[in-house]
């Protein structure tokens, strides 16, 4: 079946602009996660959704970052007033449920470059 998809694949924007990154999870997966991967580093957790609600947003770096999942499927990560330090690959993952043993399946990521 279809895996996790993310759009756009690449995004170039100017400092101060607003961007939206989209994630389509695997159908039927109730849990959705966003991670950020800086160059040469491992992914770092941003936010976790169970259904429509953000169960854990402790990884969001500041209030310029916001994410929604209004219907419990597609999620959008929104970044306001982008800064050069926001440049990274943004990865989305989904899992069947929230249990610790559930495998998280990752999308190909969106590479964001802020000029």
């Amino acid at each position: 079946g279809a895996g996790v998809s993310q759009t756009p694949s690449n995004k170039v924007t100017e400092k101060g602009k607003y961007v939206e990154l989209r994630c389509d999870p695997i159908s039927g997966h109730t849990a959705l996660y966003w991670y950020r991967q800086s160059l040469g580093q491992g992914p770092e957790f941003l936010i976790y959704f169970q259904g429509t609600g953000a169960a854990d947003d402790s990884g969001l770096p500041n209030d310029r970052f916001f994410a929604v999942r209004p219907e419990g499927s597609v999620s959008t990560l929104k970044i306001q007033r982008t800064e050069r330090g926001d440049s990274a690959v943004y990865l989305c993952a989904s899992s069947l449920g929230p249990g610790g043993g559930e495998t998280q399946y990752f999308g190909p990521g969106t590479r964001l470059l802020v000029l």
Partner: protein
Amino acid sequence: AQTVTQSQPEMSVQEAETVTLSCTYDTSENNYYLFWYKQPPSRQMILVIRQEAYKQQNATENRFSVNFQKAAKSFSLKISDSQLGDTAMYFCAFRAAWGGIQGAQKLVFGQGTRLTINP
């Protein structure tokens, strides 16, 4: 808070050789899961193998196996008969089994090891 450490930034071996990637972690949890993910240049993170901490038997998946030492908090990955397609970044990751609504579900990753298989 949990931390995961991969002390080998880069490794390189010849095709068909066996290679072992190291990973150590720090946690006060007793129940948790450990994972190895592979990330090729396409950026897609692919699960290679997983280990439940409550299981003493080391997990194996075809050419991939782990050496899980719970007391030492060590979780190494062994790749046997390495192939050119194994060339990728490899990440070790930790996940608590359950810790309430917040915090348990996220994966905590190490810094990664860049593995190159040479022909």
